[in-house]
């Protein structure tokens, strides 16, 4: 193959030419730190990454007080000596000149960007006074917390301590919620202990339903994925887009968006009708098989071929491959599953298929979470909330993480009671929740919007008070209990002291709690002493933990089913539930049935979105190191569709959604790698915050175009792949 001499393409990167970092930048700072010559002091600090939420163990190399390199901790089972591009680029976050450097108090009207710097004491006093006033006037339940990341836990104690039950995590409703509920209804537990328990390296067949491993970058899971590919695992990828994973697949099924459940039900149909399921496992561990078999009879491959736009022979062939390799088949449960508003039943179909194959608790399937007997600390006695929470929104199967959308609805309506304060910890709600217009309307109802963050995101720039948090490389956090096939304890410890005037999340929460009279729920001033005591209570040598970053602990159960290692299903019956009486009682289908979703009209494209391996949500677009490689997103348009519209590769276009919302301009990536009724964007761009000097106005914010969403009636999550756009050429 000829290599064009000037064809050093950057994968998925927009060619940015001269628009890189202005002089100096990170590289300059690093060199300055390295110029200590013979006197340079070099040391290594093992700690835990938080560029995403896989929470890899890392080792920071510190030269003369400056972090110059981050490496994976070889001892930590979630990194195994490696870090992804984002993990490597933690240095970019630490030294980002656009970081929040001191507390700020809003000077002008919300959103006009006028802030005055404040001392910590003033900012904390004003915040505490406002929280007290709101609690006194509207009740403590009028204070809501939106949390993501480690620091959220400290503020959860604060909000609970004040007496509010309204604590919610976008990771449920906008991400994994439907998956978790679907698997909990089936197996009594989620398929992830934070990290998905997929046994890819031992799989004979791996099935990815929209999961784009490689582009969706989770360190050891992708390590395992590559290993599985190299081992010759048969890979079946169901995706309307030719993802990196699809490019490695033996079978790529370029499915019509929204019809995944039809494919899954027809696979179940073939596997049952041809007797390819694990009969012994099904008899021993499941209930409801007869009803399942009866229900899926109508979902034949011929029928599914019409729904999915796949061939009948391809559906039958892949079903047989899956069945023939039972139980060493991994039906990957996925992660972001908030797609069409019927997502819990799709997750149920995936869970049921997993059960039929006998792959839960078997090699190459989903391994069982280890039990690690660690002494529990007594739970603090938080006050009972006087009024019920609003986080479930009336949906019957909402997880404890609650529904961000339900809190937003209650804030806008004032029902069942007013919500008057939002505390955002590491959450960029304007880029996370669908329909940012509603988020803005809700913010308009608030007496206090408080932001605790590292970066001045679009949502932070709406806040009344901004409290600058130290990045994960500058702070300690509570000990992490790691549950891979082995279990262990990991520690986060500062690689360098907090920069600027930033403070660790635990400290910020503690200082607020002192001012709110809630010291008994706060972290102790000597945080390290607390970590030491906790480690010792668990029988862990604290000095060894700080030196190694990770210490394994004893487990009392293994990853695979054997006569001496039997699975425990947390369902009511203690069995795997194929036909759910619980769902039936609430008026839902006991066995998933196929529901069609609306398709785009002529001239419209369905808006699909996904990930870049170099970005985490909307958190990293301004990271100098990552921005250099991927500074903006592109809109993927099928070549034939682009040709019909006269759009050339690299041309700027605008997207206009069904409600007339018009996007920022965005470059067209004209490609064969996508079905022609949809377009695709990498999520997390199009920031409007002027304080994000690199990310500002770069690319398009997919969430801006997601003005419609379909709420799943079972789990309450927001399906977000239900928007249609037209494409306008930019003059």
């Amino acid at each position: 193959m000829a290599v064009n001499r000037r064809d050093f393409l950057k994968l998925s990167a927009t060619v940015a030419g001269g628009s890189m970092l202005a002089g100096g930048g990170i590289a300059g700072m690093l060199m300055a730190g390295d110029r200590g010559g013979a006197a340079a002091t070099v040391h290594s600090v093992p700690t835990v990454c938080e560029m995403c939420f896989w929470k890899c163990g890392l080792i920071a190399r510190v030269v003369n007080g400056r972090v110059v390199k981050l490496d994976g901790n070889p001892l930590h089972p979630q990194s195994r000596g490696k870090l992804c591009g984002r993990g490597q680029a933690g240095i970019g976050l630490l030294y980002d000149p656009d970081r929040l450097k001191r507390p700020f108090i809003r000077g002008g009207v919300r959103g006009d960007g006028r802030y005055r710097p404040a001392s910590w004491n003033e900012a904390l006093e004003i915040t505490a006074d406002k929280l007290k006033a709101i609690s006194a006037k509207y009740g403590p339940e009028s204070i809501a917390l939106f949390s993501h990341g480690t620091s959220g836990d400290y503020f959860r104690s604060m909000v609970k301590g004040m007496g509010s039950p309204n604590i919610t995590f976008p990771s449920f409703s906008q991400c994994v919620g439907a998956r978790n509920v679907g698997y909990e209804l089936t197996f009594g537990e989620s398929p992830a202990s934070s990290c998905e328990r997929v046994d890819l390296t031992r799989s004979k067949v791996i099935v990815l339903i929209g999961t784009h491993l490689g582009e969706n970058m989770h360190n050891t899971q992708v390590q395992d994925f590559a290993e599985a590919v190299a081992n010759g695992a048969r890979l079946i990828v169901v995706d309307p887009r030719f993802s990196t994973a699809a490019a490695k697949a033996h079978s790529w099924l370029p499915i019509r968006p929204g019809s995944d459940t039809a494919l899954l039900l027809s696979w179940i149909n073939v596997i049952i009708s041809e007797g390819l399921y694990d009969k012994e496992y099904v008899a021993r561990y499941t209930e409801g098989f007869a009803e399942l078999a009866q229900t899926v009879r109508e979902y034949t491959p011929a029928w599914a071929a019409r729904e999915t736009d796949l061939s009948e022979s391809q559906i039958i062939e892949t079903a047989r491959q899956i069945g023939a390799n039972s139980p060493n088949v991994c039906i990957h449960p996925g992660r972001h599953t908030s797609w069409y508003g019927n997502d819990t039943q799709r997750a149920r179909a995936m869970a049921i298929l997993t059960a039929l194959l006998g792959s839960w608790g078997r090699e190459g399937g989903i391994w069982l979470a280890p039990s690690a007997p660690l002494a529990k600390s007594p739970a603090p006695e938080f006050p009972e909330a006087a009024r019920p929470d609003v986080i479930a929104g009336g949906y019957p199967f909402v997880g404890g993480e609650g529904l961000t959308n339900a809190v937003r609805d209650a804030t806008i309506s004032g029902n069942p009671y007013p919500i008057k304060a939002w505390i955002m910890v590491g959450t960029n709600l304007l880029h996370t929740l669908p329909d940012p217009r509603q988020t803005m309307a809700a913010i308009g109802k608030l007496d206090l919007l408080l932001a605790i963050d590292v970066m001045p995101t679009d949502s932070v720039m709406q806040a009344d008070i901004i409290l600058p948090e130290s990045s994960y490389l500058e702070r300690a956090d509570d000990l992490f209990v790691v549950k891979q096939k082995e279990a262990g304890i990991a520690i986060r410890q500062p690689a360098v002291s907090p920069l600027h005037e930033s403070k660790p999340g635990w400290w910020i929460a503690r200082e607020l709690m002192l001012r709110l009279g809630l010291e008994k729920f706060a972290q102790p001033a000597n945080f390290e002493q607390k970590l030491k005591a906790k480690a010792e209570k668990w029988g862990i040598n604290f000095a060894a933990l700080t030196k190694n970053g990770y210490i394994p602990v004893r487990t009392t159960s293994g990853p695979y089913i054997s006569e001496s290692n039997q699975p425990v299903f947390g369902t009511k019956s203690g069995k795997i539930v194929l036909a759910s009486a619980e769902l039936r009682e609430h008026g839902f289908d006991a066995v998933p049935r196929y529901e069609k979703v609306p398709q785009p009209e002529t001239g419209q494209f369905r808006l699909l979105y996904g990930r870049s391996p170099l970005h985490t949500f909307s958190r990293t677009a301004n990271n100098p190191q990552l921005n250099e490689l991927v500074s903006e997103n592109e809109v993927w348009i099928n070549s034939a569709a682009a040709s019909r519209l006269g759009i050339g590769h690299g041309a700027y276009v605008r997207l206009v959604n069904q409600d007339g919302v018009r996007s920022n301009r965005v470059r067209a990536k004209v490609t064969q790698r996508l079905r022609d009724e949809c377009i695709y964007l990498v999520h997390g761009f199009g920031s409007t915050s002027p304080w994000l000097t690199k990310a500002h106005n770069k690319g398009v914010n997919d969430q801006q175009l997601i003005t419609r969403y379909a709420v799943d009636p079972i789990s309450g999550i927001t399906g977000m792949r239900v928007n249609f756009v037209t494409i306008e050429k930019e003059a």
Partner: protein
Amino acid sequence: MPRYAMLIDQRRCVGCMACIVACKNENKVPPGMYRTRVAETTAGIFPKLRMELRSELCNHCDHAPCVDACPTGASHKEADGSVQIDKSRCVGCKACMAACPYDARYVHPDGHVDKCSFCNHRTKVGKAPACVETCIGGSRIFGDLNDPNSEISRRLREHHVRVLLPEVGTKPKVFYINRFSTPGQEG
């Protein structure tokens, strides 16, 4: 004396670009410049497609045109077979850049030409290059061709490999395994 080489198993590359960020940090590569990159090429018509992910870097050629072109001796072969640049001898004339068929070099803001060194500051102390150490897919394999028991020697014996632009006669020491499955067919 070892003779270093790299083998890139393209089947395992997931295009995550961890190698690029690791390299840039490890070697303080200035913004906008790269010692290694990942090229993506897709061929075919929907839905019959085939994608190649190809990591590219200095090939540390045995017949290195950059070394021949360098008027000052700054670009030179080391005893370990790697091509290195003696920055103090480099006058920034760019003759090497014109000679390199792989576009592997750039002009550092300090005035000298720069490129991948196979992380020789790391290999000297027994560590793998930064890109290899963090390669998520385990796609990059580095080692000693003079050691028949090294992983790279073993894999080179076991696989059909190719090099980039063999026709230019540079004898690269970066090798590629690139047997791809074609979607819908047996691999």
